[in-house]
């Protein structure tokens, strides 16, 4: 990897972290409504996943979607504008935190019903296979989603038809407050993929380079026509499931153990140790990220709220035609 690539990965992870910290503050001030699911602790996952893709590849994820949005290149200010429900947000203020997307960047959302986007991922890949586009769909979901029927229908269909999908299970150890030990018949999520005859792998989700390299290999394999594969990425979220999580299901000590080997700190040490950057270089990136988030907040604050007319816009494509 080139030095510039390393620094870009670091920039993205730091930007996500600053964005999320700021989002938490805005939520506490009451400026962000609804649910807010922070990606803090999991930054290496989406950063590594998206860095591995080719431009034609698709990415689709669940409601903890701010990371992917930044990684695919939705400007930070556009994400913040969506969180504040403004017309300049990527979903015009109609989707909110859980529904970020960019069709232009082949990022198909942000989906808030657990597991419901998995069959949609099957369909994205079906279209690519039928149109012979050589694209792979990367579908990200939490380990909790492997307990819902959608998961089984979607991966069974994808495997039966040999569709180009990389199923990426972000195992952050809790589906809301329930661990796989309390909710899954098998303790290792990967066993579920084996049940469908899929090649399955796992990787340390606290190591962005490991994630990127693993995903690159998997994409290459799938692109070669080997059908769907399954990847479990072992990670951890440092904050609650959403804002206002009492966190009775885990101890402070447990959280601290993971914070101590956090993905950004890890990578920072690596970049310095390998001489890829000096301290000043990393501080510059960190300061730039903070400035970008601050500018983004200003942009979001100054952006107009949707008009009353927007309420009835985009219910149907053909509204105008029908009159």
């Amino acid at each position, binding site marked *: 990897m080139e030095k510039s690539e390393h620094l870009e990965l670091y920039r993205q992870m730091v930007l996500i972290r600053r964005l999320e910290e700021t989002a938490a503050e805005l939520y506490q001030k009451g400026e962000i409504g609804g649910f807010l699911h922070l990606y803090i602790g999991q930054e290496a996952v989406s950063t590594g996943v998206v860095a591995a893709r080719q431009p034609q590849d*698709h990415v689709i994820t669940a409601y903890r979607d701010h990371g992917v949005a930044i990684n695919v290149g939705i400007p930070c200010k556009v994400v913040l504008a969506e969180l504040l429900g403004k017309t300049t947000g*990527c*979903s*015009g*203020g*109609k*989707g909110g935190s859980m*529904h970020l*997307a*960019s*069709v232009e960047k082949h990022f*198909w*959302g*942000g*989906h808030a*019903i657990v597991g*419901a986007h*998995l*069959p*949609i*991922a*099957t*369909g*994205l*890949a*079906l*279209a*690519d296979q*039928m*149109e012979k586009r050589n694209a792979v769909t990367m579908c990200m979901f939490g380990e909790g989603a492997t307990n819902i*029927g*959608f998961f089984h*229908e*979607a991966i*069974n*269909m994808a495997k*039966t038809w040999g569709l180009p999908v990389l199923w990426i299970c972000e195992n952050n150890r809790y589906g809301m407050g329930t661990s796989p030990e309390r909710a899954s018949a098998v303790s290792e999520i990967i066993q579920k993929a084996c049940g469908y005859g899929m090649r399955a792998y796992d990787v340390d989700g606290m190591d962005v380079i490991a994630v990127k390299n693993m995903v690159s290999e998997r994409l290459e394999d799938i692109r070669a026509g080997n059908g769907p594969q399954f990847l479990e990425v072992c990670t951890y979220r440092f904050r609650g499931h959403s804002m206002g999580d009492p966190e009775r299901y885990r101890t402070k000590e447990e959280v601290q153990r993971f914070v101590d080997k956090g993905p950004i700190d890890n990578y920072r040490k690596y970049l310095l140790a390998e001489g890829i950057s000096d301290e000043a270089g990393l501080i510059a990136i960190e300061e730039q990220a903070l400035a970008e988030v601050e500018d983004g907040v200003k942009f979001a604050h100054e952006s107009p709220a949707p008009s009353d007319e927007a309420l009835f*816009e*985009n*219910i*149907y*494509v*053909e509204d105008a035609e*029908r009159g």
Partner: protein
Amino acid sequence: MAIITMREAISQALWEEMERDPKVFILGEEVGVWGGTYAVTKGFLDHFGPERVRDTPISEAAIIGAAIGAALNGLRPIAELMTINFAFVAMDHIVNEAAKLHYMFNGQFRLPLVIRTPGGGGRQLAATHSQTPDAIFAHFPGLIVVAPGTPEDAKGLLKSAIRSEDPVLFIENATVYQQRGEVPEGEFTIPIGKSKVQREGKDVTLVTYSKMVSYSLQAATQLEKEGIDVEIVDLRTLRPLDMDPVITSFKKTNHAVIAEEGWKSYGVGAEIAARIYEEAFDYLDAPIKRVAQKEVPLPYNRRLEQLALPQVDDIVNAVMEVLK
């Protein structure tokens, strides 16, 4: 004009649109090798091949979910649910994904998608396989719900549905595939979201759709002998609902009966009656009557089943009553 069955009309629409546009494909249970449970896609596999006439696992959520994904990614899928009773296991993808993605992502996502599915009771399939839950689906903004009552409308509306940029739930009725009707020769489409006067009359407005169109026509023929002239307005599309022909007719006749196959409570008839009261109360000469299915899970026993389902005589009686 040619006289063909409902099945042939639907089959022709599918065939013609698949010939016209290579992006159109069919997926569903038993659509290929079997030829469709109701033989609608018989012969399609040999002509269009297994890619475009795609047999699926018994996975309704994945069928609709995959159709959504394929539509987002540039194809024009026609997903077939073997019966509308199976739509409940795909409910999230129909009402929570297909109906919402375009709006929720502010117009970025497009879903040129058709879900074809037959409903209706009367074939002794008992309670879980005999429902007419059309009103439930028509409840959701973002979904288009079409339910034709004649072969001509079935063909023309299905072609429009396949060409639509929006998700369309196309509800057929499993008991009328053999019903015949006149259909124009050659290429034609019928616009979605337009109700139609199927029979002109001056005494009473009979609002209906789907299978109850033919029942209503039979009732009108009987009533004609009594000297009653019935105007039949066929909704054809339940959402978006076109009330103009209903209101125009009602302002002329001042009497209305609504006939549907589904249950009365919270049904299509309730919606139409409410709208007539809201939009044309001053023209009302008598309370509006609703003909619908009795409020029971449909039983297997033939006599009980028919007792629960709305019949031609029920429509005749309702008309007589509003005109009393």
